[in-house]
């Protein structure tokens, strides 16, 4: 099994969700994060003093998948999250040792 971590633009969340749905992946956990990277924040101005929000709001998706699904899912995310501009984000894949569904005690493939 794999744990996929995707960092995407917040505006793309709905598209990515739909794309994941299409490849049969309905569960995920999303959090709001701040991204530092190539993309720079916007200049803001407060009482005559410029300041720049260094970080950019991003969405982080954590998706547990089976090893077989993994490539498909990564592809789906990549396609749906793409805009071509800096800051489109990253996809990271980790090995997942073990998974449990709390409600049913199912484990691993059945739990995802």
């Amino acid at each position, binding site marked *: 099994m794999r744990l996929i971590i995707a960092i995407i633009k*917040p*505006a793309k*969340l709905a598209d990515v969700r739909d794309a994941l749905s299409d490849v049969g992946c309905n569960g995920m956990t999303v959090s*709001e994060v701040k991204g530092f990277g190539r993309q720079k924040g*916007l200049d*803001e*101005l*407060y009482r005559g003093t410029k300041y720049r929000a260094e970080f950019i*709001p991003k969405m982080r998706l954590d998706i547990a998948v089976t090893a077989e699904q993994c490539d498909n899912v990564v592809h789906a995310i990549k396609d749906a999250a793409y805009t071509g501009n800096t800051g489109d984000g990253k996809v990271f894949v980790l090995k997942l040792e073990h998974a449990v569904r709390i409600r049913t005690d199912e484990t691993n493939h059945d739990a995802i």
Partner: protein
Amino acid sequence: MTLQQLSYSLDTFYLLISAVLVMWMAAGFSMLEAGLVRSKNTTEILVKNIMLYAVACTCYLLLGYQLMYGQPELTDYAPAADFFFQVVFVATAMSIVSGAVAERMKLNSFLLFCVVLTAVIYPVQGSWSWGGGFLESAGFSDFAGSGIVHMAGAAAALAGVLLLGPRRGKYGKDGQIYAIPGANMPLAALGTLILWMGWFGFNGGSQLQLSGTENAQIVAQIFVNTNAAAACGAITAFLVMRILWRKADLTMILNGALAGLVAITAEPGEPTAQVACLIGVGAGLLVVFSILALDRLRLDDPVGAISVHGVAGLYGLLVVPLSSADATLSAQLLGAGAIFGWVFGASLIVWLILKVTFGIRVHADEEYQGSDVSDCGVEAYPEFTPSKQN
């Protein structure tokens, strides 16, 4: 000191205090609208509201008042008090526009429109009735401005909304309507209560004179009726929403109260309190269905300004004959048609000119990201990251 002088002082004071209450409505509109837009457009709507008040006061001072009233000879109270009372009314009319076009209208174009509305469009139609023009002669009766102020503001707003289009994401391709909840309900409630309070000055002051038993009694009755119509508007909207959807929809209750206030404004002194209640009930009913209908028509009005001020304003004008012997339905229709036609037409032209010159709609990116950062340089709540992005 003579009795005359003392009554002059009292009436001046009464007008000034009424005017301060109406001025306070600027805060009411600001808070109401700041509560009903998303957080990313909150600073901008605050800028719009404060600037429109400032611009309206200045333009009406330099031009509008003369256009509307000429050089009135006022002997019962200080002329400056009359001016101050009138000037805060213009600001109210313009405040109505800011709500309806919120979250997508360019700030500069909005303020340019504000100049034209408050210096020319509003005063011209105001002169027809309150300035002693043809509508007054025709028997048109609009005591405190259901039509002259509120429907006029809504007409200008409607013209703007038609040219501007809805907010992105408000309507789906297949007729879906998406909810875009406002960011701060306590502010919306506060704004409504401020408006409710200010309305006592708006309607109560429109008697223009307090001295004398009869004047005092009418003013007192206006206070009672204004309050009763608002209360019943709120209760009605609550009941309708509760029955239709089982939810106690706060923003509809607020709109219901405001609709009651707008409706009673055309004739707040003559009805009994019980009739005022009924007028409020009608307004509460109307406003809910008007808001639902406008959404079906894909006319996006984030705060419900067109329904509250336009629909309930028209309704207020049309029910005047029920309680006032002097008013006729035909005169009311004539007045409503003339005001709406002029304000809507003139506004449409001004909006059109602005559209082809400076543009009236913010860029799509700016709309997505919110006008606060791009146009105002600062977010409304910079330390709190909104967790839901639209």
